[in-house]
């Protein structure tokens, strides 16, 4: 009887331990994946900030964004062929990449803040709590 009880306890302990360890490992793996993605985003943002933004060519037929002069500099350029290049800062880039990830089945991200410029970026309950 004692042996049977001992076997039961050992079996239960092994399986509980195995389940807990599997959960922990998968959680760690997901956390690691999320951190890597975050690091990559931050690197891209840092690079963009280093260059005070990047100019991207507007695809033909795409509606032009608001062109303005900021701090005495135009936020657009026009080349000899008449193509328009619009200046994008790190926030623009983050938002654009975010939209791309949302269309795929894998990992996705989005910027959010307490009081976003774009109402779409308003935080949900989890984000609000995290912020």
């Amino acid at each position: 009887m004692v042996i049977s009880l001992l076997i039961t306890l050992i079996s239960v302990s092994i399986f509980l331990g195995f389940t807990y360890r599997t959960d922990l490992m998968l959680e760690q793996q997901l956390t690691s994946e999320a951190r890597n993605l975050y690091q990559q985003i931050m690197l891209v943002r840092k690079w963009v900030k280093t260059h005070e933004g990047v100019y991207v060519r507007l695809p033909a037929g795409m509606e032009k964004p608001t062109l303005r002069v900021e701090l005495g500099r135009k936020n657009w350029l026009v080349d000899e062929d008449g193509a328009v290049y619009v200046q994008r800062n790190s926030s623009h880039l983050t938002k654009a990449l975010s939209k791309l990830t949302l269309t795929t089945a894998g990992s996705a991200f989005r910027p959010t803040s307490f009081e976003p410029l774009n109402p779409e970026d308003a935080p949900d309950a989890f984000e609000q709590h995290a912020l």
Partner: protein
Amino acid sequence: MTFEEKSGKTIFRYMSPLRATEGCLNCHEGRRGFTVGGVGGGISIRIPADALVQQRSVNLWALLSSLAFVLVLFLGSIIYLYRHLIRNVLEHEQSLVEQEKLRRQTQKQSALGSLAGGMAHEFNNLLLPIMSLTEMTLRGMPDESRERRRLEKVFEASSRAKVLVDHVMMYSRQTETERKNQDLRSVVAKAMAMAHPTMPATIKITENLADDTMMVFIDFEKIETLMINLLSNAVISIGDKVGEIAIGLSMVSVEAHETMNVNALKPGRYGVISVEDTGCGMNEETLLRAFDPFFTTSEVGEGTGMGLATVAGIVTEHGGAVGVSSFVGKGTRVDVYLPLVETSD
């Protein structure tokens, strides 16, 4: 970080802060958290985590199945052990009860044997001059005289008393023995041949004697007496009715100690003489006292009550045992176990 269920899918959510820089203030100045170095926002990351859920589910099923298996094994073990334990305890208790019963019986037999044996010895010494002097006086008396008839009755009564004394002495094992190795089958056959003519015609005798040679170290006369006593009891038990007495002889091997009505069997090989009748049988109370000397259920004058007591004495002297099973109205079976002499072949 957290897990979130959405549209039946599990999502792993992770949030990291975005610290505001001077550049951010161009657009966000005055908004909550937007000071240089402050946390005005963050990057919210979503990673599908269905694999985790599936793994959890598999683990859970594996755990539950294993637990169910172990539980069944555990309960099975408990039930098996419980039953085994209970059986052992009951058997042990039964064995103790039987051993205690046998011990008391042996003590009682021993005490009675000493008492009866002492008295029988003294009585025998008294009988001896009575019988010899009566016999001598008879020799010189006329055949048809009244005194001779009276003395003949004295001699006859003395002879009966001598038989009774002999039985008592046999029970108390105070008689001389002449034991030698003999085949039990031939001993039983001879005893049966002597007893058979005295059996009532209303009783059918059947014999089932094994062909095996069973060498036993015995006193033939005592085993003969034992057989006559058993047959006599069987005949008395059947009475005037039509009945049957079955005589059996077999060989058995005893593997473990076994308590019987008289003595206990040690492991070994035994020759078993069985006498089974279809008589009135005995109830439990009678069976308990059946081997007591002078205990009888017969009418006064019909039996001495020394039959089974003598059997017990003879069997004990030969290192054997006696087992009795009896049912009221159905009959009685007596098994006499005598240890076999181990022969070289």
